[in-house]
């Protein structure tokens, strides 16, 4: 039904038309064009977006800038945000979205929240109704700022074209500095169509925002002293190391003081998998060694990680014997979950180098060798069965490891969430930094496909391997269309068990095998892949796996490998939620 328009709305549209008339000799440009110039000035060349009523002027301007700004048209705005995340995580650049108001904006919420939890720099530009209509429940109007304030570093509404240059530069400065995170810029329609004299304004100072604090030399000295005295030091490495480009500083630090390290899920690939001091992953499904040793070490050195409950388990029994040194750039993380003996507030690249200068070369041969017992136990009880089973259906872990090896352990791993994720990060191996893209803090199913799109565009020269489950695949399945349109050679592997596997695992262990809401009836994924022009093959037999992986990696284009794995597979080791980190279930 045609809505009766008020005079105000009619005037609004009339003024929009007037604004778009070009006046000869006038150097003023539209707000939309100013937005694109500001993005280009920030080094943007790729935008993930989806148009709609209140963003049409921006997309119209994009048409003129299509040589400089590549628009990746996603199939749903959630996909746009996850793609921006994947892009940012592998490239270190800021991921950018342009979406419309109302549902366009609300569809980005999950990705924004995910980026906030995982400290990913993204700038989300949302269209908004003309400022005269704000607050009136206009068509597709939603309070984007109010909704996104709790899940962004900064959210700002632009109502005048004159503010665009400043707001965009400020958005990129905030998103990419300090502890990175998402920024939302809500752009009212009249700011998009109004004319402005565009002048680039670089924002690199905000008096109320200190992204990198000055190093406290006294704390550095105290930290070094504690490390020098340590007999059994253990380092916990988080994504902060990757975000501050401190991988080399970390290696020098660890080697000088001879400190073994455990990695958080997001910290993975900050050190190569085969690096001798890398003792594996921490947490609920992490490696036995670093988890147990957390409760045996005398000094615990946390670097750019936040003691998430999936890492610590029960805080009352967590590392009580150790003195904790916490390196972090975010002061509100220090002391949030654990009691810290020495806070080292700052950028890990600077603070690690500063501490390294004060520490004495040391050797902790016996302590480091003591990890071998745990490694051996985990190998016998878990890894061997998962990677080299002699019979029975395909195991998730063996598929992951075979793919990793076939890429010479040099691919980018993207995962969805659930068993596929834990198997992926446990058994994939890494040579280079920024090789893992996974949804850690928020644990967003459906993250995988769009994140892989972003990862492939952010690292076009690298092989991107996406592992997902049959559940998560169907949450953002529509992005197959984006992959097809962009001709992205992503190598996708669905570990298909016809279950929501991780929930099923919990139901088996803790809910008397009552499989409520976890049994899936699935389509033929291979046929689906063919509909999108992808290469595909379905494997069930161990003998065919190697050949299928080879075919996938050699295939010129997108490929979906459907691995029908055991239906009741379990991810072990497992520390039950809220249990002590030494209470490890091996699944014997």
């Amino acid at each position, binding site marked *: 039904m045609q809505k009766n328009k008020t005079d105000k709305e009619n005037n609004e549209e009339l003024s929009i038309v007037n604004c778009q008339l070009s006046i000869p000799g006038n150097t003023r440009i539209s707000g939309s064009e100013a937005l694109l110039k500001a993005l280009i000035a920030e080094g943007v060349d790729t935008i993930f977006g989806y148009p709609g009523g209140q963003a049409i002027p921006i997309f119209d301007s994009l048409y003129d800038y299509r040589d400089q700004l590549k628009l990746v048209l996603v199939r749903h705005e959630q996909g746009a945000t996850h793609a921006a995340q994947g892009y940012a995580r592998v490239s270190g650049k800021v991921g950018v979205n342009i979406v419309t108001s109302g549902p366009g904006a609300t569809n980005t919420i999950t990705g924004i929240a995910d980026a906030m939890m995982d400290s990913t720099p993204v700038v989300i530009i949302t269209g908004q109704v003309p400022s005269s209509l704000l607050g009136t429940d206009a068509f597709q109007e939603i309070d984007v*700022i109010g909704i996104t304030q709790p899940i962004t570093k900064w959210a700002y509404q632009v109502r005048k074209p004159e503010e665009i240059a400043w707001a965009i530069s400020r958005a990129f400065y905030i998103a990419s500095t300090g502890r990175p995170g998402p920024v939302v810029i809500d752009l009212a329609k009249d700011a998009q169509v109004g004319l402005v004299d565009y002048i680039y304004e670089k924002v690199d100072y905000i008096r109320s*925002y*200190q992204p990198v604090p000055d190093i406290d030399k006294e704390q550095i000295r105290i930290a070094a002293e504690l490390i020098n005295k340590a007999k059994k030091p253990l380092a916990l490495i988080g994504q902060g190391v990757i975000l501050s480009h401190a991988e080399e500083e970390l290696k020098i630090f660890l080697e000088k003081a001879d400190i073994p390290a455990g990695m958080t899920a997001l910290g993975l690939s900050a050190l190569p998998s085969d690096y001798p001091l890398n003792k594996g992953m921490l947490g609920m499904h992490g490696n036995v060694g670093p988890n147990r040793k957390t409760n045996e070490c005398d000094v615990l050195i946390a670097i750019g990680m936040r003691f998430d409950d999936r890492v610590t388990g029960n805080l009352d029994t967590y590392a009580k014997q150790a003195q904790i040194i916490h390196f972090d750039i*975010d002061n*509100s993380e220090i002391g949030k979950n654990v009691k810290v003996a020495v806070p080292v507030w700052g950028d890990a690249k600077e603070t690690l180098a500063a501490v390294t200068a004060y520490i004495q070369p040391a050797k902790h041969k016996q302590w480091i060798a003591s990890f071998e017992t745990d490694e051996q136990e985990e190998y016998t009880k878990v890894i061997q069965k998962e990677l080299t089973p002699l019979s029975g259906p395909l195991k998730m872990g063996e598929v992951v490891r075979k793919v990793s090896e076939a890429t010479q352990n040099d691919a980018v791993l993207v995962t969805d969430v659930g068993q596929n994720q834990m198997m992926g990060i446990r058994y994939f191996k890494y040579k280079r930094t920024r090789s893992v893209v996974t949804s850690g803090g928020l644990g967003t199913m459906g993250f995988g496909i769009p994140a892989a799109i972003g990862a492939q565009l952010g690292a076009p020269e690298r092989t991107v391997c996406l592992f997902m489950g049959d559940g998560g695949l169907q949450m953002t399945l529509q992005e197959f269309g984006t992959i097809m349109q962009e001709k992205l050679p992503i190598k996708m592997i669905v570990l298909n068990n016809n279950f929501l596997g991780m929930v099923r695992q919990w139901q088996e262990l803790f809910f008397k095998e009552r499989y409520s809401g976890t049994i899936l009836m699935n389509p033929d994924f291979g046929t689906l892949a063919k509909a999108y022009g992808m290469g595909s093959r379905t494997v069930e037999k161990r003998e065919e796996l190697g050949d299928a992986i080879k075919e996938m990696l050699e295939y010129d284009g997108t490929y979906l490998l459907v691995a029908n794995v055991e239906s009741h597979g379990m991810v072990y080791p497992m520390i039950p939620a809220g249990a002590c980190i030494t209470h490890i279930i091996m699944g014997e």
Partner: protein
Amino acid sequence: MDKKLYTVIIFSENTVGLLNQITIIFTRRQLNIETLSVSPSAIKGVHKFTITTFADEDMMDKVVKQIDKRVDILKAYYNTDEDLIHQEIALYKLSTDLFLKMKGVEDLIRKYNVRVLDINEDIVVLEKSGHYAETQALFKELSETIGVLQFIRSGRIAITKSKVERLSDMLSTMEKKLMENN
């Protein structure tokens, strides 16, 4: 840990939506805001929030760090009553009729240091400033004798006793940094 009343003092840029950003941090930690007062500060363009809440110190510390981290917040810190000079203001609307018939009006005014703001044939409006207990004591006495038609108390305002001026220190550090970088 024991809960006690803390006063959180926050200085911010004068931008839209900051109150929302602050209150959601209290909400996430299930903290009730007891009183809230917002006004421009002595420094142009800087706003000051004074918030009181019952919490334990560990919680207070975490909440204030999370507030301080927000981009447009200049400085946030917390104090207990011992560190502060604080004040609230209260207004009391009474019936003129009953007020005039009340015994010991002069004593009441002297005892509570009350100001009379308005008086007409129907109503009297009294004003009292002081700590919560003081304004509450007057309210109690009036309501038990002649009754109170309307009562309103402001949020707490407070200034620190300490010599340290955290906001000015922070601003001068930031300005120095800007100069060094340019």
